[in-house]
C-alpha cells in the first residue's frame, strides 16, 4: 500500500502533539514556579535532612509523578498502555501518601491544622488555575482525562505541603493535609469536568 496518506495522517497527529506541547510546557513552568514560590516563602521543613532517605525520595518523586506524568497523561501527551496506567495511578497515590504520612507516624502534640490546609488549597488553586488557563482539562475527548489532571495537581500540592510542614502528627496530617486535599480534589475534578463539557460541546 502507498504510504502518502499514512504519512500525512501521522504528520497531522504529530502536529497535534506539538500543539499540545506548546500549551503544556508554559503551564508546567508556571506550576513549577508556583510550587517553588511557596517553598521559598515558607521554607523547607527544618527536619528535611533528618527524614529517612526513602521519604525524601518519595517527596521528590511525588512532584515528578503527580505534577508531570499525571497531567501528561491527562492532556494526551503520553499514552501509556493500560497496565502502566494502572501502575502509575497506584504509584501516584501511594507515593505522596507515604511521603506525607511517613512511618512511624510522629507523636508530636496537636498542631494547628488550618495554615497547612490553607497553604494546600492556595497552591492547589494556583495549579488548577494554570491547568485551566492552558486548556489541560479539555485536551482529550474522554472526560476521565480530567481526573488525571485534577488528581495530579492536587497530589502535587499535597506533597508540597509536606516539604514545608514539619509536623508528622496523625491528627494534623488528617485534618490539615489529607482532608483539605480530598476536598480540593473533588472541587478540582468538578471544575475540570465542567471545563471539559463546555469545551467539548
Amino acid at each position: 500500500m502507498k504510504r502518502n496518506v499514512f504519512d500525512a495522517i501521522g504528520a497531522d497527529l504529530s502536529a497535534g502533539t506539538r500543539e499540545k506541547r506548546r500549551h503544556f510546557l508554559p503551564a508546567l513552568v508556571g506550576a513549577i514556579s508556583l510550587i517553588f514560590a511557596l517553598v521559598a516563602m515558607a521554607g523547607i521543613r527544618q527536619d528535611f535532612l533528618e527524614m529517612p532517605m526513602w521519604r525524601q525520595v518519595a517527596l521528590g518523586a511525588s512532584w515528578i509523578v503527580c505534577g508531570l506524568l499525571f497531567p501528561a497523561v491527562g492532556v494526551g501527551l503520553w499514552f501509556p498502555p493500560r497496565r502502566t496506567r494502572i501502575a502509575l495511578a497506584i504509584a501516584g497515590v501511594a507515593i505522596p501518601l507515604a511521603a506525607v504520612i511517613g512511618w512511624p507516624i510522629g507523636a508530636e502534640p496537636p498542631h494547628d491544622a488550618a495554615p497547612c490546609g490553607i497553604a494546600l488549597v492556595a497552591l492547589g488553586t494556583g495549579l488548577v488555575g494554570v491547568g485551566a488557563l492552558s486548556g489541560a482539562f479539555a485536551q482529550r475527548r474522554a472526560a476521565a482525562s480530567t481526573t488525571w489532571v485534577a488528581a495530579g495537581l492536587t497530589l502535587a500540592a499535597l506533597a508540597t505541603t509536606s516539604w514545608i510542614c514539619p509536623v508528622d502528627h496523625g491528627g494534623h496530617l488528617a485534618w490539615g493535609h489529607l482532608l483539605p486535599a480530598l476536598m480540593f480534589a473533588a472541587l478540582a475534578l468538578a471544575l475540570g469536568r465542567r471545563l471539559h463539557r463546555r469545551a467539548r460541546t
Partner: protein
Amino acid sequence: MERYVDGDRRAFEELHVALSHRLRGFLLKLVHDEPACDDLLQLTLLKAHLARDRFRVPGGDPDGAVQAWYFAIARNVAMDFLRDRHRSKKREAGGSDDGKDAVGGLPDPTPTAQEHGEQVESEAIIVEEVRAAIAQLPPKQREVVELHKLRGMSMADIASRLQVREGAIRVRAHRAYKALARLLQPRKRPLLGQDDATREAE
C-alpha cells in the same frame, strides 16, 4: 481508537495494521478493481481520520464499533467510486447523467456477437440505400454531395474546384439534400446528416 482520537500516532499505526488488510479485501469485493483498491483504502483512512471526532461506541464492544465504523466508511467510499465510474461510462457512451445509482447493477454495454452481427448488417443496408439515393440525383447535385459529404470539402473549396460561384454551389447542395431527404426514409437521415448539410448549404 480513543487513543488515536486523542492524537496518539502509535495507536493509529496499530489500528492501521489491524484493519488495512481486511478493509482492502472488503473494498476489492465491492469494486472488483485491484488498482483502485489502494487509492480507495487511502481515501477510507483519510475520511476516517477527518471524522474521527465523531466516532462513538454505541454498545459495550469498542472493537466491534471501530470495525463497523471503518467498514461503513469504506462502503461509502466504494459506492462513491462505483457511482463516479458509472457516470464516466455514461458520458463516454454519450448518455445523459440522470443521477441514478449504479450500484444496483448496470446492463452490460458490450454487445453480444449476435447483436454485433445484426448491427453491422443493418449499417451495410443503410449505406447501400444512401448510395442508391445519391445515384438518383442529377449529375451536378450528385457531384456537390460527393465532394461535400464523402470527401469532406467545404463549400468554398468545391466552388473553387468547379469554377462556380459559391452561392450556386450552396443552392445545388440544398436542392440535393432536399431530394435525398425525400428519397430516404426518415430513420436514415441522421446517418446522412441531411439537416446539418441543408443548413450549411443555406
